[in-house]
């Protein structure tokens, strides 16, 4: 009964209800407007909302998250520009539909299936997180170290141009996270004797720099790109279509939830895998894949929405963010003094159930906003980058300043923005950097605890990694991940014909 009350917190409190609604609506636009991203918006919002009650801040941010993941599909369909990486697969069949004048139908169908996928993800979060949390109580320090390493390396290997670039970006993030006084011994690390650096570099400042300013600088390249106008009519999907696609939607949601729950993989991989699944299992699509098959639209959208709930599972129970967006959300939890991990569910069950209820509510808002307000929407996404970029810069500056009221943070933000710009230009991803900043201090503390536990003996330390079942499983996963990156092995791996070559 208590759980039901906690679940319904966001539904019954008018203020939280409104914030979730506003967040979802704003998220749809943020995700849809090329040049704005969910990570950018969530990073900036964390600093604006950190004085709020934790419930209110999370209501707004999770609304933006849910709306943003979905919003990327809009521009993928209308402009063939995926508003977010998770919408890449959506563009393959969505854009051909729009070209045929069926944009409204495509949007209606993606909205409905995204909501179903989102609900499946939330249900999985409610069902599996408590069990995983009690299992995670058995995790030792070295297991957390391994989980952190796997998370950073997976994000690094899957999102960037090369594994080495992912490692560099992740390690850079870890290094940024190390700056300041060591929490165990209070010795300064990379402080150079200055008081300014003793408090460390705030992770939100790094997030705003890498996701806000750097992205704005990249967008400067395409400031002249003209906005494409689109006409949209019918949005409410036909019941026949919904019924026909329901089976695939549920399967894709399952894929999305599992992929989202794995550390290092998020909505983008989930969507691509679900698209591949749809291609292989659909015998007679109405239209061929790549030319506007509804199956090719439904599967990735259901999967990337389901991945949101999935991604919350390791984030809340282990404290390991699965991708860049959840790394930002974990930052939001940290700033409110919460420690995501196995104890979160036992110490603050109300917060967990509030989040579950809130995500479900955001999905409901998604259905409402997704199927209405299309006219206004087409006007807003025509907003030119020349207007957006200066606004992003001002919001980033306020965000970086507001977090500690420290003018120095604003310069850090600019520095990270410039570094992030060059990293992006030369094919490095900034996602692993943020994961490194967030996970670095946790991994450092766990490494040292594990080493102290082994009495500083390397032999004992290493043997522990293979003699305990959980550690052994995780060490094996890490080893496999590393072996898969060896060039020779990759060549063997790549010689196999790709599954979607049909």
């Amino acid at each position, binding site marked *: 009964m208590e759980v039901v009350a906690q679940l319904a917190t966001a539904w019954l409190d008018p203020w939280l209800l409104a914030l979730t609604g506003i967040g979802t609506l704003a998220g749809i636009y943020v995700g849809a407007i090329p040049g704005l991203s969910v990570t950018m918006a969530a990073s900036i919002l964390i600093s604006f909302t950190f004085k709020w009650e934790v419930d209110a801040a999370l209501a707004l941010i999770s609304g933006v998250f849910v709306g943003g993941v979905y919003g990327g599909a809009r521009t993928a369909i209308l402009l063939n520009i995926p508003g977010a990486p998770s919408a890449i697969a959506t563009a393959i069949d969505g854009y051909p539909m729009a070209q045929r004048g069926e944009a409204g139908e495509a949007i209606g169908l993606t909205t409905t299936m995204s909501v179903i996928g989102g609900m499946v993800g939330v249900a999985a979060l409610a069902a599996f997180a408590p069990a995983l949390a009690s299992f995670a109580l058995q995790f030792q320090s070295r297991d957390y170290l391994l989980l952190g390493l796997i998370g950073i390396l997976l994000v690094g290997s899957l999102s960037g141009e090369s594994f080495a670039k992912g490692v560099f970006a992740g390690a850079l993030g870890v290094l940024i996270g190390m700056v300041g006084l060591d929490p165990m011994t209070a010795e300064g690390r990379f402080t150079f004797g200055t008081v300014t650096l003793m408090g460390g570099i705030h992770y939100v400042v790094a997030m705003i720099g890498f996701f806000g300013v750097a992205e704005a600088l990249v967008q400067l390249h395409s400031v002249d790109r003209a906005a494409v106008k689109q006409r949209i009519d019918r949005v409410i999907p036909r019941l026949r279509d919904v019924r026909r696609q329901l089976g695939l939607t549920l399967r894709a949601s399952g894929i999305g939830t599992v992929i989202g729950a794995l550390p290092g993989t998020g909505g983008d991989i989930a969507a691509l895998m679900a698209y591949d699944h749809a291609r292989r299992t659909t015998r007679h699509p109405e239209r061929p894949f790549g030319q506007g098959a509804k199956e090719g639209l439904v599967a990735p959208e259901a999967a990337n929405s389901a991945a949101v709930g999935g991604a919350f599972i390791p984030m809340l129970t282990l404290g390991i963010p699965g991708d860049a967006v959840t790394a930002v959300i974990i930052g939001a939890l940290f700033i409110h003094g919460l420690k995501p991990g196995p104890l979160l569910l036992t110490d603050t069950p109300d917060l967990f159930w509030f989040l579950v209820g809130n995500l479900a509510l955001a999905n409901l808002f998604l259905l409402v906003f997704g199927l209405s307000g299309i006219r206004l929407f087409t006007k807003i996404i025509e907003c030119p980058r020349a207007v957006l970029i200066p606004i992003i810069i001002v919001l980033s500056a306020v965000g970086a300043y507001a977090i500690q009221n420290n003018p120095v943070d604003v310069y850090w933000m600019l520095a990270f923005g410039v570094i992030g710009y060059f990293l992006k230009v030369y094919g490095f991803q900034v996602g692993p950097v943020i994961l490194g900043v967030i996970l670095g201090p946790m991994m450092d503390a766990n490494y040292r605890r594990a080493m*102290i536990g082994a009495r500083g003996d390397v032999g004992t330390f290493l043997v522990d990694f293979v003699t305990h079942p959980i550690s052994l499983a995780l060490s094996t996963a890490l080893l496999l991940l590393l072996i898969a990156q060896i060039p020779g092995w990759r060549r063997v791996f790549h010689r196999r014909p790709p599954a979607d070559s049909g």
Partner: protein
Amino acid sequence: MSETNAPVADAAAGDQPDGHSQCRRRPGEGVFLLVALGFAGWALVEAYGIAGFTSLSSPGVFPMLAAASMVASSLFVLLDVRRRPPAGASGWAIAAQFVRHVVPTRHVVVLALIVAYLVAMPALGFLASSAAFLLLAFLYLWRRPWWQALLLTITLTVAVQVVFRVVFQVVLPTGSLGLTLPGLSF
């Protein structure tokens, strides 16, 4: 202009699901990687300076591991890049390409505006400096008449000030000159 920029911009957007290595070096890539390697090496020395090899659980071990990973990975990327043909025939050609594709005039101007904005903020306060920055940036980037840029700037500045002070209750720098909107200086 935007067409010539497209390859760098697209690569820079980084939205490809599983990016493939480009055939040619990007202009300035080698220099960037050398700087990255230099930074990683310096970080390694600094990390060693924290506690040396005194103990395996000292505060310096993890920073050393991170810095060493950066040295190794940047070396790896550098070797990979050196195998590919350079971006241009001569150093000058590459420099010209670097300027055109990586830091074109537009980037230099906008970055200069951002730096001026951030430096001016402590003195002018958030309101005046943001308004000035927005106006100049719109005038430069947005090909519309000046009064439209001015109108948008005024609307946005008022909106941002109201939203931040009232909804988010963020403390914005008022500046040593104390410029602010009447009624909102609380």
